[in-house]
């Protein structure tokens, strides 16, 4: 931790405090400084970290968190405030590129960010997040095995994120129209009988990787330009069957509910299917024989954080099974989380509906890609534009 130069006024103030307070207060005062200068954005201060987060540290805040939806769950926010006395300022980022953009615009304005998959390594390349010591987060070892030392969140041997949520990208299909056998072949959506019936979202690295996988590229990120062109040609062939390429994945759910489409492709298949099943929609998830991709998101501490101790406490809190159970099942969202111990806090029906019982089958399936690497984003972006303009 880099030291901080105190002003004379601060020295006098702290000296007076030290004279009057116990040696314990000395420790707390010193530890309130983090490596970015600690505290001082005029926010609140809270209680101290304890237990798993190492030595007692005074927490400063509010903590600015830039995340996907769900991290603003009232129970989660209230639980953190109750335990640590620090408020969380949550902002929805709406997508990894937007996250990068917001963080680049204001590198010290955010303490914790919530990227997906290979975007963690991109944030490292851009020098926007700092490494973490997984030993500070003991609940990570309760995670499903692949998420204990999750490779895409590790760069040059250092960890940069704690995993929180995941899901699979296969198909959601309407059971009244499509059988499980039909949906087991990934290429069924190219059948002309599904004209205008396949809903998807605008997520270029997902769909290019998926079609690459379907076409036999077991490491889609390493595809050559020729292979990439073939993938785009295949996607263009699919265009007559596409209902819409939505900007918001909730529109896939709306299409399946309204009968506009009979297949939802990608966009977070498993959690959308859980939500639709809760709404009594006749849908099922298919992991096609050709394979599927798992998405994983995590929490990272920014390089420019003003509240390092609080950020660490937040990451620890967010990896606990009880917190993740609130995230996994609430009134607005049902989504898979990485810690199977949430079973202790959910009903058996909820745990089952989330598909967490099947998760280990996904991890064991050799055709399901979990450890996604960063593609050539420029080449893939241009390829996707060819698809969209076709």
């Amino acid at each position, binding site marked *: 931790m880099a030291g901080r130069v105190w002003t004379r006024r601060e020295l006098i103030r702290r000296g007076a405090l030290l004279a009057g307070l116990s040696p314990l207060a000395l420790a707390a005062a010193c530890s309130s400084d983090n490596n970015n200068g600690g505290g001082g954005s005029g926010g609140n201060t809270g209680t101290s970290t304890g237990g798993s987060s190492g030595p007692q540290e005074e927490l400063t805040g509010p903590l600015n968190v830039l995340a996907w939806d769900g991290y603003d769950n009232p129970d989660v926010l209230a639980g953190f405030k109750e335990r640590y006395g620090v408020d969380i300022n949550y902002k929805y980022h*709406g*997508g990894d*590129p*937007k996250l*990068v*953009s917001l963080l*680049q615009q204001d590198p010290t304005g955010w303490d914790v960010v919530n990227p997906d998959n290979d975007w963690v390594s991109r944030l490292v*390349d*851009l020098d926007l997040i700092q490494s973490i010591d997984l030993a500070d987060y003991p609940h990570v070892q309760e995670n499903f095995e692949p998420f204990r030392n999750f490779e895409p969140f590790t760069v040059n041997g250092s960890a940069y994120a704690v995993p929180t949520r995941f899901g699979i990208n296969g198909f959601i299909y309407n059971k009244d129209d499509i059988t499980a056998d039909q949906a087991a072949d990934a290429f069924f959506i190219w059948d002309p009988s599904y*004209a*205008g019936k396949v809903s998807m979202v*605008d997520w*270029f690295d997902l769909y290019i990787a998926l079609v690459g996988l379907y076409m036999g590229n077991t490491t889609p990120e390493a595809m050559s330009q020729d292979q990439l062109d073939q993938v785009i040609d295949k996607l263009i062939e699919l*265009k007559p069957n*596409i*209902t*819409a*390429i*939505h*900007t918001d994945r909730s529109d896939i759910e*709306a299409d399946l509910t*309204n*009968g*506009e489409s009979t297949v939802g492709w990608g966009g977070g298949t498993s959690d959308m299917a859980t939500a639709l099943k809760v709404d009594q929609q006749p849908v099922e998830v298919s992991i096609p024989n050709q394979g599927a991709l798992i998405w994983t998101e995590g929490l990272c501490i920014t390089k420019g954080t003003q509240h390092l101790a609080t950020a660490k406490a937040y990451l620890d809190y967010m990896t606990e099974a009880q917190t993740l159970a609130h995230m996994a099942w609430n009134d607005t969202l049902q989504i898979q989380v990485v810690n199977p111990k949430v079973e202790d806090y959910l009903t058996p029906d909820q745990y089952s509906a989330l598909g967490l019982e099947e998760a280990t089958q996904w991890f064991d399936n050799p055709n399901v890609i979990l450890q996604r690497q960063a593609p050539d*984003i*420029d080449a893939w*972006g241009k390829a996707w*534009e*060819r698809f*969209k*303009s076709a």
Partner: protein
Amino acid sequence: MGILLVYSFWHVTPSFAIEHTFNLNNYTAIFTEPLAYKSFLLSLRVALFSTVGAILIAYPFAYFLAKRAGRLQLILVVAVAVPFLTSYILRAYAWRTLLGENGIINGALQAIHVIDRPIQALLYSPLATGIGLLYLFLPITILPIYATLERIPDSYLEASSNLGATPARTFREVILPLSMPGVLVAAVFTFVFSIGEYIVPSLLGGGKQLLFSETIVLRVNSDLDWPGGAAMSIVLIAMTLALVALVGKRARKAGFF
């Protein structure tokens, strides 16, 4: 606007950093990259569709309002303006219910045996976007036309009739020329609002064929190519201003203003 212009000459690197070096690549890309120029042309077509459609619907309604509504006039004018009091997004979203495969329009057409199976292209298509824009900006089209028609003295119409002109000739030679300033203002408003609109295309267009506004958002939000997005925005603004100036000049020349 100045910031936008300066940005448009810069360049974004693969690591999302903005290089402050002057170049025209962002502008040439608009006319060479298929996604950009195709979306630009599609935007022109959709805006033209909604403008022409809105005027064709608005004109008879505005005429009725100005000349035939009698005591209903005030109520109808209020009725035209009332949609502005409701959420703009909600109004656009409502068209999904109307245009969908299981929507009201397809249902009605099937019920009266006009079609055997639902028309898929009604929703999530440029047509859907055009219909949504037409509906959204219809009040903006009606009100200027109504205002000009309302100012035409009834004595002009009576004189035309007394001189033996048929109703069609009166319309062609008296009403239409006198109402043209309103029609032009309405057309410019509707076209300008339509061509830059983003919410309606993103809700109804389906994203398979992007409009120019959607391509700008794609550049900025997904590619983080702010300079590219800025150049596209500048082109859109320049075209809009040029159109307004051109119409204004022609209108002045014709003695409308």
